[in-house]
């Protein structure tokens, strides 16, 4: 384990951040339970096959590149081998934030977009954000489209009080009707689309206060 360096920025849990460490966040729906991880070099990084640190603890995993865009993740714990794709085609699909690299990872057939940033920098930003949040309060929720398609019907209007799970609108994509439901209880503050509107991924659909 790396010796404590009191002058280094720390993660929320107090773990020190190695200047070379990166923080990795998986972007996307339904992965809210998956916290960001910090991956850094282990203290004995000078030794080949060094065990990297994840969140301060060594992990028994290694990554072997196979050419430029392919790699194999090996997990020693269960002796599994996971080929993955790390496409470089898209010019680092911008995350919209400086210093944050968004990239695609394909592993076991699953496709993820991950954001990678300097863990030290992210820790500093977190500290600043926590300060700001203490001043404010949790704001309204913006609901964005997660699939492209056509809005078939809108069953709510501004001012409506909705409960979590209630159907808000129906989007037709690939000839299937997809119901969008309220992510939580609240009041409809604004409806940004009407029936018949063509929407793309990320378009604002409505605001829930």
């Amino acid at each position, binding site marked *: 384990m790396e010796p404590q360096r009191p*002058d280094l*920025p720390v993660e929320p849990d107090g773990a020190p951040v190695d*200047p070379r*460490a*990166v923080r*990795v966040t*998986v972007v996307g729906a*339904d*992965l809210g339970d*998956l916290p960001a*991880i*910090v*991956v*850094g*070099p282990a203290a004995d*990084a*000078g030794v*080949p*096959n*060094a*065990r*990297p640190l*994840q969140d301060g603890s060594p*992990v028994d995993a*290694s*990554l*072997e*590149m196979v050419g*430029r865009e392919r*790699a194999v*993740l090996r997990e020693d714990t269960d002796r599994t081998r*996971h080929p*993955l794709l*790390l*496409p470089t085609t*898209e010019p680092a699909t911008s995350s919209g934030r400086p*210093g944050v*690299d968004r990239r*695609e*990872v*394909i*592993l*076991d*057939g*699953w496709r*993820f977009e*991950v954001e*990678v940033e*300097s863990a030290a920098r992210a820790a*500093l930003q977190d500290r600043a954000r926590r300060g700001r949040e203490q001043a404010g309060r949790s704001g309204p929720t913006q609901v964005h489209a*997660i*699939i*492209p*398609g056509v809005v*078939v019907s809108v069953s709510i209007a501004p001012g409506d009080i909705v409960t979590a799970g209630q159907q808000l609108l129906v989007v037709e*994509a*690939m*000839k*299937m*009707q997809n119901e969008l439901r309220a992510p939580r209880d609240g009041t409809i503050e604004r409806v940004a689309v009407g029936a018949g509107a063509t929407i793309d991924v990320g378009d604002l659909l409505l605001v829930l206060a």
Partner: protein
Amino acid sequence: MATSRSDQAPSLHKDDPKRPPFRRVLVANRGEIAVRIIRACHEMGMEAVAVYSDADAAAAHVRLADAAVRLGPAAPSESYLRIDAVVDAALSTGAQAIHPGYGFLAERAAFARAVEEAGLVFVGPSSAAIDDLGDKLHARRTARAVGVEAVPGTLEPAPIDRPDQLAAIIEVAERIGFPLLVKAAAGGGGRGMRRVTRASDLPAALASGSHEAASAFGDGSVYLEREIVPARHIEVQLLGDATGRVIALGERDCSLQRRHQKLVEEAPAPGLSTDERRRLHELAVRVATAAGLRNAATAEFLRAPDGAFYFLEVNTRLQVEHGVTELVSGLDIVREQLSLAAGRPLSSAALAAADRAAEPAGHAIEVRLTAEDPGHDFAPTPGRIGQWVMPSGPGVRVDTGIEAGDRVPPEYDNLIAKVMVHAGDRDAAIDRLRRALDETEISGVQTTLPFHRFVARDASFRAGRLSTEWVGEHWDGPAQRMTAARRAQLAAGLHALAAAERPATASALAVGARAGGAGNAGLIDPSGDGRWHRAALDDAVDRWPR
């Protein structure tokens, strides 16, 4: 698209099986099935004409065809569903026949009629037979008339536009029993279908099912059918000729479905005895013969837990999953379709395949790779494909119209490839499927690949314990996705860590990489992937609290 427009269409070589049945055939479809049909045309020495929407101007089926005609904008109603435009395209290019593929206009009697009236040949059953068999309500009545038991339910369309008859339809529903299914009379693939568990939900289900059916098929008629669970979905491939002779080429098990859309199909259906196969094939032939089937169709049945077969419907077209029957029967079904369409009798190859239908050669499995997220209830994931590596090798067949860099448009069905395997028996076929899917690489959009890899490794699938409930009972998509997400996160971190290091210090920070050797070659990216990281690092170091 090299084509020589001919001056005169020569007459059909109806009676010479060695000559191509037509000189030029228009393929009224897109995607993998258009490619499949174009290939059959070319193998038979015929020219193929493609049609396309603006979303498909550069698609594989357009490039492979000898000529191509633009139909209109991307929306199906303005392109692939335009009967007049498709018929005009055939007339203007001198095509003699139109193959509709599946979906779009394939089961529209009005389309078959328009083709017939234009003096062209429709590659499929006659418009009259499509009326009889393609309309599920007609088909249910036809089956009843020849003593083939259909799934219990209604035989006439539900009166959705008659509020005064609501009470009557609810009463009928209660006699059938809940849960029941609202189904589109003109339907297929689960579109317009709604599962109803209580009477109070019925009116809304009828309305939304009818709306979806009208949007997908141009016909909003819906009816009620009892839900049989657990059931296996087993279907029989049929061919018929102009003399009225109908044969069965064998059955397929298509039980693995989500939202009533098939995900995995295999031939033969596992666990059936030869006698059961013969009996099932006979039921299918009886219904199709009564309806005057010509060309190709598929009779679908549900097999109840007690082994009873209930007739479900007949699809009067080439099925998506026809390939598994081709693999175990050795017959090219599209080739037979084109030959039958020219008025030729069932070929000797087809008759021989029918004789062997109850004892097929080996086992074939198909998986449908679709642009859907199996970790998110199979929600559609249209987008642009990045890398695209399809499997090959012994016993593997891939039917696709996709290439690296292609867009999967949101306007159409999200099937992007059919991966089929064929081996001596079912166990060997599953082994081959696992191997083939492990070779498959797709980036850019989420596909059903993780689901299929899971199926290929699952013990209950291998044991043949199949039912239409299988996916819901065995597949925990969110959990599988979460496990993979953790690994992807770790891998991305290791990759960034390694890439950020300067080449000179690479060996000092060989993060889990092999020391020395070729394995390290790609570890460090000299092109500067790590630049942002170094910049961020400098930035962070500058602001270190000291």
